[in-house]
């Protein structure tokens, strides 16, 4: 049920009874007015009787005045007679007006008036006589008879009005009874109707209320289930998840987050994130910026800086990789922050192991190449030794010794190169990239000659950078071997090394550019060049070469670009390595790969 229907029913149960009661009140008022109208008629009869009696009294007063005069002959005694005359005329009008509604009473009044006029005519006759003779028995008898007639008529009128009044009283009583019955019946009807209506409405409200309750219950259950589902999902995620309110107080942690931080959720709830999620820079050991503050400031998803370590409550340290994102409500308002992070300690270790593996592979390849290089002169020296043992002629012995010396010099040269390969300083030192490249090319010389590859060298500037020579040698060995393989038999490689000045976002340094005459690289290959285990060499490659090389160059603050050459001279790939003159430890320069 919706709220609107509920309100409608409420309105019905309120307004309909009021309307019904108003109608009932109107009916009762009407009934009362009926009764009062009837009561007014009774009052009217009373008025008629009162005014008629007053008229009679006035006439009697007049008669009394006349009688006084008759008895005394004194004119003064006539004063009431004269005073009454005017008032009687007026009183007749009053009574006449009162009985206008009743023809019978009008007839009675006309008779009274006639009788009065007769009596008055007689009275005038008395007054016109000599005062001495006005008190005769006959005269008096006649006057009395006239007056009796008048009184009889008044009495008849009074009786008629009295009868009328009684009739009216009866009617009023009847009406009153009828009204009482009507009011009682109508009130009863209204009461019953209201009871029925209200109960039906109430039943309906109750029904809809029940339905609404059931629906709400269902919704609550659904919401609970959904909540459980989200909770389970968050709990099941392999990454750690922490949700915070806007003020940075922890509101939720999943199991992994609890495990990594060492804080059970019950204890962490409501605490500031910085207390629970204690992160530092792995290198400097300084406290890292609170991700909540960062999200509040930037209002967007942020990743943590590299080399962030999480110190758990029990002091255990995890290298983590994480991101923090604002939680937004439906209207886009930021209501909190969610942190997602994972323990990358193991993967960092495996990464380090991969780098070590590639180092070993490079070393292994170099060792094989060196063994070959050394075995050749060793063979010669052993042969010379054999010759010397059996040779007595001084000129020949001298010649053999010269040959042996020549081979030994070559061996020394090779072993020196080998030694420098593994003599690694702790801090970066000045490395002449031209020299370094020549050293690598020397080690690869046999292979270069065997493949008949032409090496073109274009060196300019002093080309000295700060760095770790063994690592850089590993990079260039990798790049040159790739170029040799790409160039193939009879191919050519151009090695250009030049100092470059500072540019925007790039300090001065040296660029080593190696271009081969091979097929170039495909788009698909270019996308994977720096991925570990990606190789185009099948069983012969570890797939780690460029990945490790890139890591080394980035560590030196440099960058690698690999593109297809476009100067029209050589057709293959062009690898450009930029290294800054002064190395920037841990500077992360993004490696870009373009294929044209």
């Amino acid at each position, binding site marked *: 049920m919706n709220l609107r229907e509920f309100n409608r029913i409420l309105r019905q149960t309120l307004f309909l009874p009021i309307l019904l009661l108003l109608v009932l009140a109107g009916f009762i008022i009407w009934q009362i007015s009926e009764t009062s109208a009837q009561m007014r008629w009774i009052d009217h009869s009373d008025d008629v009787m009162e005014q008629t009696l007053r008229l009679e009294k006035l006439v009697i007063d007049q008669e009394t005045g006349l009688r006084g005069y008759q008895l005394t002959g004194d004119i003064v005694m006539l004063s009431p007679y004269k005073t009454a005359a005017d008032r009687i005329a007026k009183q007749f009008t009053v009574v006449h007006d009162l009985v206008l509604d009743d023809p019978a009473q009008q007839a009675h009044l006309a008779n009274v008036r006639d009788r009065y006029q007769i009596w008055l005519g007689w009275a005038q006759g008395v007054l016109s006589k000599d005062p001495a003779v006005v008190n005769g028995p006959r005269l008096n008898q006649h006057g009395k008879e006239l007056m009796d007639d008048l009184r009889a008529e008044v009495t008849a009128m009074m009786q008629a009005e009295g009868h009328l009044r009684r009739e009216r009283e009866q009617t009023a009583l009847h009406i009153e009874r009828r009204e009482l019955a009507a009011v009682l019946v109508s009130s009863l009807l209204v009461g019953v109707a209201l009871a029925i209506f209200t109960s039906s409405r109430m039943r309906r409200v109750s029904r809809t209320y029940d339905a609404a309750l059931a629906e709400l219950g269902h919704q609550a259950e659904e919401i609970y289930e959904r909540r459980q589902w989200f909770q389970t999902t968050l709990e099941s995620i392999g990454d750690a998840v922490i949700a915070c309110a806007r003020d940075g107080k922890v509101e939720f942690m999943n199991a992994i987050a609890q495990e990594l931080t060492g804080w059970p959720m019950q204890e962490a709830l409501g605490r500031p994130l910085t207390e629970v999620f204690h992160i530092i820079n792995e290198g400097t050991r300084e406290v890292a910026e609170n991700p909540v503050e960062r999200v509040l400031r930037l209002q967007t998803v942020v990743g943590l800086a590299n080399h962030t370590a999480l110190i758990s409550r029990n002091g255990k340290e995890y290298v983590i990789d994480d991101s923090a994102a604002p939680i937004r409500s439906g209207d886009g308002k930021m209501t909190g922050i969610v942190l997602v992070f994972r323990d990358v300690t193991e993967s960092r270790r495996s990464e380090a192991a991969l780098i070590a593996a590639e180092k070993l592979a490079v070393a292994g390849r170099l060792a094989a190449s060196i063994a070959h290089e050394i075995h050749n002169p060793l063979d010669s020296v*052993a042969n010379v030794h054999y010759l010397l043992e059996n040779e007595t002629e001084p000129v020949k012995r001298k010649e053999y010794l010269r040959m042996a010396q020549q081979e030994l010099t070559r061996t020394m040269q090779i072993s020196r190169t080998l030694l420098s390969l593994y003599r690694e300083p702790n801090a970066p030192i000045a490395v002449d990239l031209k020299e370094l490249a020549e050293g690598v090319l020397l080690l690869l010389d046999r292979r270069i000659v*065997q493949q008949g590859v032409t090496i073109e060298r274009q060196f300019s500037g002093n080309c000295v950078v700060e760095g770790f020579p063994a690592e850089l040698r590993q990079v260039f060995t990798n790049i040159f071997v790739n170029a040799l393989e790409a160039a193939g038999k009879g191919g050519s490689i151009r090695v250009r090394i030049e100092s470059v000045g500072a540019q925007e976002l790039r300090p001065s340094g040296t660029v080593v550019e190696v271009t081969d005459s091979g097929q170039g690289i495909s788009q698909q290959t270019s996308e994977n060049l720096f991925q570990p285990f990606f190789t185009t060499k099948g069983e012969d490659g570890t797939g780690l070469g460029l990945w490790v090389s890139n890591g080394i160059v980035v560590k030196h603050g440099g960058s690698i670009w690999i593109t297809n050459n476009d100067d029209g001279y050589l057709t293959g790939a062009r690898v450009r390595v930029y290294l800054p003159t002064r190395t920037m430890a841990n500077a992360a320069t993004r490696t870009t790969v373009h294929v044209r």
Partner: protein
Amino acid sequence: MEAATGPLILCIDDEALGLKIRKAVLEREGYRVLTALDGSSGLTLFADEPVEGVVLDYFMPGMDGGQVAIAMRKQRPEVPILLLSAYVNLPQEITTMVDYTLLKGEGPSELLAKVHAMLRRKKDESGVEGGR
């Protein structure tokens, strides 16, 4: 140097100095030695001269020892070949095709022993199967 009369051996190696020294060692043992600095000139000599044995370096620019050996086997399969290498791991198909292999640096006595054995075997085989 007195004129040698021993079997004619062809030595092929791109290492000029090493080749020169190896030639001296073999000549001291009485072999006649022809030398070539790469595979193709070696094959020319092999075709033109009555070579009785070949001492061949594996790792060379241009044609490597394996390719040279295959070409020689096609021309004259009876001529024994000793393959020299600084590598421990040579391709299986090459090592089974040649008669002997020798790791460079094993010393002249080993070289001479293998050359000697190679030529003796050739002589034995031609003696038994010469009538065919």
